[in-house]
């Protein structure tokens, strides 16, 4: 114990650091400031820590639910399900990994797309489900994204994508790589038709997803503190053989380097995006309709795994 710690009165001294005596479910410890938070309150706050504004990862459905107006939602590409063209097997079969991911997330693949409204304006929204094999992009993700872009074009409305992904899905090999080309080509069509695409990068957005659709927004937005980059920090560290600077590849770093337009707090996301989209599509100032802060449905939140580390390329 250092002299400084000895000086501190015992009641403000933290002991040992990790004393996970909190019962699962009711309370959550903020990974940012270590504050112990009442989970229901955290959820009401869109999983942003009310004390330090740490943004916890949230799932695709919850994302869509918190972003879109409650009425008139329509899912896109729900009928698509992953195949296993290469009969891929490593220590585990790809088939089994899929089944497991489908069970634990209740999703068929790592992206959910919906047409709906944002403060009364028509919009198509795609959201990655990070808990589904690290949000990795395979054939279904690519196809759903393209269909979302198609629906946006059909209705002449903007597309918004919330990305959270480790990158391309290795188990679909070159098919996955080609999804980068496929999704980018769809965005070219959006641009040719003069329709806005807003890319919101959330924690984490890496590899093939960041090197395709996620960096191609007319406006690139990031949530605070999100890890965003092409190569993973560990790969870079192994290559350059030095430790990386503090905050490297975080949203604030990207803003400083000119890669993104802005950082937006999740709690302001609806209002800010509505404001931007209304200007880009030359519509009157939208009126926020949603009651303060409350998400639409109080979904049963699954226990949050501390760190999903499904690494992808």
């Amino acid at each position, binding site marked *: 114990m250092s002299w400084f710690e000895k000086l501190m009165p015992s009641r403000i001294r933290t002991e040992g650091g990790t004393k996970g005596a909190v019962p699962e479910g009711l309370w959550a410890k903020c990974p940012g400031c270590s504050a112990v938070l009442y989970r229901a309150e955290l959820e009401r706050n869109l999983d942003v820590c009310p004390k330090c504004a740490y943004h916890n990862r949230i799932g695709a459905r919850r994302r869509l639910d918190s972003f879109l107006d409650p009425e008139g939602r329509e899912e896109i590409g729900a*009928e*698509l*399900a*992953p*195949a296993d*063209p*290469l009969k891929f*097997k*490593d*220590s585990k079969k790809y088939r089994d990994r899929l089944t497991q991911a489908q069970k634990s997330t209740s999703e068929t693949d790592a992206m959910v797309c919906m047409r709906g409204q944002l403060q009364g304006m028509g919009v198509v929204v795609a959201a990655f489900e990070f808990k589904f094999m690290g949000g990795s992009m395979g*054939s*279904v993700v*690519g*196809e759903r994204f393209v269909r979302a872009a198609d629906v946006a074009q059909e209705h002449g409305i903007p597309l918004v994508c919330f990305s959270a992904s480790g990158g*391309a*899905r*290795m188990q*679909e*090999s*070159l*098919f*996955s*790589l*080609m*999804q*980068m*080309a*496929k999704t*980018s*080509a*769809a965005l*070219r069509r959006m*641009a*040719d038709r003069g329709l806005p695409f807003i890319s919101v990068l959330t924690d984490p957005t890496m*590899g*093939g997803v*960041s*090197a*395709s*659709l*996620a*960096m*191609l927004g007319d406006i690139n937005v990031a949530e605070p503190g999100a890890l965003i*980059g*092409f*190569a*993973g920090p560990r*790969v*870079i560290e192994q*290559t*350059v053989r030095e430790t*990386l*600077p503090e905050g*490297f*590849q975080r949203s604030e770093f990207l803003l400083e*380097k000119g*890669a993104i337009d802005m950082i937006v707090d999740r709690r302001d996301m609806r209002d800010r995006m509505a404001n931007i989209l209304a200007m880009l599509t030359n519509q009157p100032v939208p009126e926020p309709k949603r009651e303060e802060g409350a998400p639409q449905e109080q979904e049963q939140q699954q226990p949050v795994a501390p760190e999903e580390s499904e*690494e*992808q*390329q």
Partner: protein
Amino acid sequence: MNLNFLEFEQPIAELKAKIEELRMVGDDNEINLQDEIDRLKTKMRGLTESIYSSLTPWQIAQIARHPQRPYMFDYIERIFDGFEELHGDRAYADDHAIVGGIARFNGRPVMVIGHQKGRDTKENIYRNFGMPRPEGYRKALRLMNTAERFKMPVMTFIDTPGAYPGVGAEERGQSEAIARNLLVMAGLKVPLICTVMGEGGSGGALAIGVGDRVLMLQYSTYSVISPEGCATILWKSAEKAPLAAEAMGITSDRLKELGLIDEIVPEPLGGAHRDMDTMAETLKQVLVEQLVQLDGISTEELLEQRYNRLMSYGQFTSQ
């Protein structure tokens, strides 16, 4: 061990050494060893054929990375005339891992762009082992836009372990640089032919790999991640790279089967590096044929076909 030969080629190397020995002896003595030499040469050919007829994906990956494999400049010399290299991205630097410029292809002006690796350590450091930084992709992008402006077909040549994973590359927007190329190539209003010459390493390859035709040299590879990288993540050991190479289906014949590439360009016996001139000649013929086909298509139709082709990528089920 003969370093000009890969591990699985060592029996060939031994035969070759024997032939050389006999030749030396034959030169010194009066005895005629020509018959014996011819016999061994036939045997060597047979052995090479037999080894090369049953290569594993991992062995093919090694041929694709062979230090003597022909690189971009070897093909430029042999396939094109009047090459003028164009440098720089006009914003930050000139990346030496991607080279490009205008040249004549059978008399016709074209834009050529490709990865360049180095032959020795010094050259490899200069070329960054063929791993581009953002400025490399942005140079490629600039050249593609130039090609469009002057209505020149674009030919790209791919041979990279991948985009460079470095601090500076991240700071300058490696992701954006790759993504932007994908978007622009999807709508570039001139014919685009991409050829994988050696290693097609992930996004770093794809960033100059979206085209109307995608060709692969017989013993080149194309994959979403290197076999070593895949093995490290999924098998937790880089040693399992041969398994990963097998599982990912990274070879030209497998990718042709899966409909992800258009054509395989056959290599000379023993790989492209055994006979660069023949390799270049074969590749040139294929490029001529492909370009003739693309010339017959209107720009609108070309873009439509390219788009539909991109949209067809992917396999899934639909209930």
